[in-house]
Structure formats: C-alpha cells, structure tokens
C-alpha cells in the first residue's frame, strides 16, 4: 500500500463516520457540526484528486455558507433546544434497507463496468487547471449557457426563499 492509499483510507473513514453521525445524532446543532466535518473530509478527497479549486470552493461554500445557514435555521425553528421525542421514523428500518439495497445495487452495477478500477495518468507538464476552467465557463462552444443559467437559478432561489420565508402578510398569522 502506498502512502496515498493510506491517506485516502483514513480520510474516507473519517468522512463516513462523520456522515453516519449526521444521520443518527439527536441534537440537530451537533448534526450540523458533524455535517461540517463530513464536508471537510470531502474537501480533502477533492484535494487528493488534485481538484484544488473544487476543494477550496467546497470549504468556502459548504462550510462557510451552507453549514452556517443550517445552524441558523436550526436555531430559528426551536423554542427549546433540548430534543424530546424520537428523532427517527417508526419505519426507519425500511429506510436502512433501501439504503443498503441502493449501495449493493450501485456497487454491483459499477463492477460490470470496464473502467471501474482504472488508475489516473499524471498531469501533463504545465497543466493549468484554473485557466482551462475559466475558458470552459465562458467560451460559447463549452459551458457558457450553464454559467448564465446558474445565475438565473440563484436569482430564483433568492427571490423564492425571501418570498416564502418572510412574506409579511402570511408571517406570524396563526401564532
């Protein structure tokens, strides 16, 4: 086993344990903090894949913004932070079964694919991932349409969220 493989296994274990804690912890703030550690583990996975930009963006967007939003939302929706009552469904075992079947199905499906265990080739010298990414995002024969559509998507999300959550006419009407 090479050093890189050992690092990968360590990171993967960390990520998966954190992920299990996310879905099983009772305290929702703790669940959100476990989500942060999962996301950090995924960022390290991106770094192992040499996707520097994606790794940093993972920390900036997920940990810096989405996790903060989750923590805010948890604090906004509780009169009392102590958790009472069960956190799981009555038929949580069915969910576990579906999840296990999904995993088995995915792995068995992937195993038949010829490229399943291929290894990566080294980067060509002078490879400039950032430059290529910038070109791909704005050149008309590549991904300029997704680039602009993403802006519309974000606009829709902002307007929708502001409208839904804080419409002055509907808020606090049934207190």
């Amino acid at each position, binding site marked *: 086993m090479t050093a890189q493989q050992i690092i990968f296994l360590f990171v993967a274990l960390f990520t998966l344990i954190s992920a299990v804690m996310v879905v099983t912890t009772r305290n929702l703030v703790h669940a959100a903090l476990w989500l942060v550690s999962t996301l950090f583990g995924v960022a390290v996975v991106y770094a192992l894949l040499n996707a520097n930009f994606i790794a940093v963006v993972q920390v900036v*967007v997920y940990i810096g913004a989405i996790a903060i*939003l989750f923590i*805010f939302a948890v604090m906004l929706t*509780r009169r*009392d932070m102590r958790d009472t009552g069960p956190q799981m469904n009555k038929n949580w075992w069915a969910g576990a079964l579906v999840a296990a079947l999904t995993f088995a199905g995915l792995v068995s499906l992937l195993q038949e694919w010829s490229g399943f265990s291929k290894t990566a080739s080294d980067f060509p010298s002078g490879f400039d991932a950032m*430059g290529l990414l*910038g070109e791909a995002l704005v050149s008309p024969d590549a991904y300029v349409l997704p680039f*602009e559509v993403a802006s519309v998507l974000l606009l829709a999300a*902002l307007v929708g969220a502001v409208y839904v*959550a804080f419409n002055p006419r509907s808020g606090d009407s049934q207190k």
Partner: protein
Amino acid sequence: MNEWLYVAMFIVVGLIIPVGAITAGYIFGPKKPNPVKQSTYECGIEPVGTAWIQFKAQYYIFALVFLVFDVEAVFLFPWAVKLGQLGLYAVIEGIIFVAILVVGLVYTWRKGMLEWA
C-alpha cells in the same frame, strides 16, 4: 499533491499549538469548581432559563443573501483568472451574470428585507 502537504502540516501544527497552550493552562491552573462559579454569567443576576432559544429571523435573511452571492463569486473566480486573454465578450458575459443577481438584491431591498426591523 505536494502543495497540499504544506497545508496539511499547517492544519496539524495549527491544531497542536492551541491544544498545547490550553493543556498548559489546564495543568498549571488551579481547579476548584463549584456550582456558583460554573453558573452562566448574566451580570450577577441569577440566569433565567437556557440560551438555546428561538432566534431573530433577520439573521437568516442575511445568511441567505450571503450564500447566494458567495456561490456567485465562486463562478466569477475562474472568469477573473482568464479575463486577460478572453477579451470583451467574456466581460459582457460577466456583466450579464452579475446583473441578473443584482436583480435579486434589488428585490430583497424593495421587499424591505434588508432592514433590521
């Protein structure tokens, strides 16, 4: 890969140093806990209830607007890196991109959501 080795080392050492400092404080400091000392500080008044209560909704709005513009900036960074070589049409694409999102900011503003009320 090598560059991330440095960052990993910074994270490791950056954890070791504060842990060491706090441990030193733990070793050398006195430890005489009592219930009054450990009660929550509330300007000398008996604390009432827990602090883990429902919070002001306005904080959520600002986190929301921040999230949207944060993702927007992520899209613009590769654009900014390549701007020197790409010429005018890339600038116009960027202007369209930002203009669409500024509409969202203006909407939030007009709705009165940026007020701290």
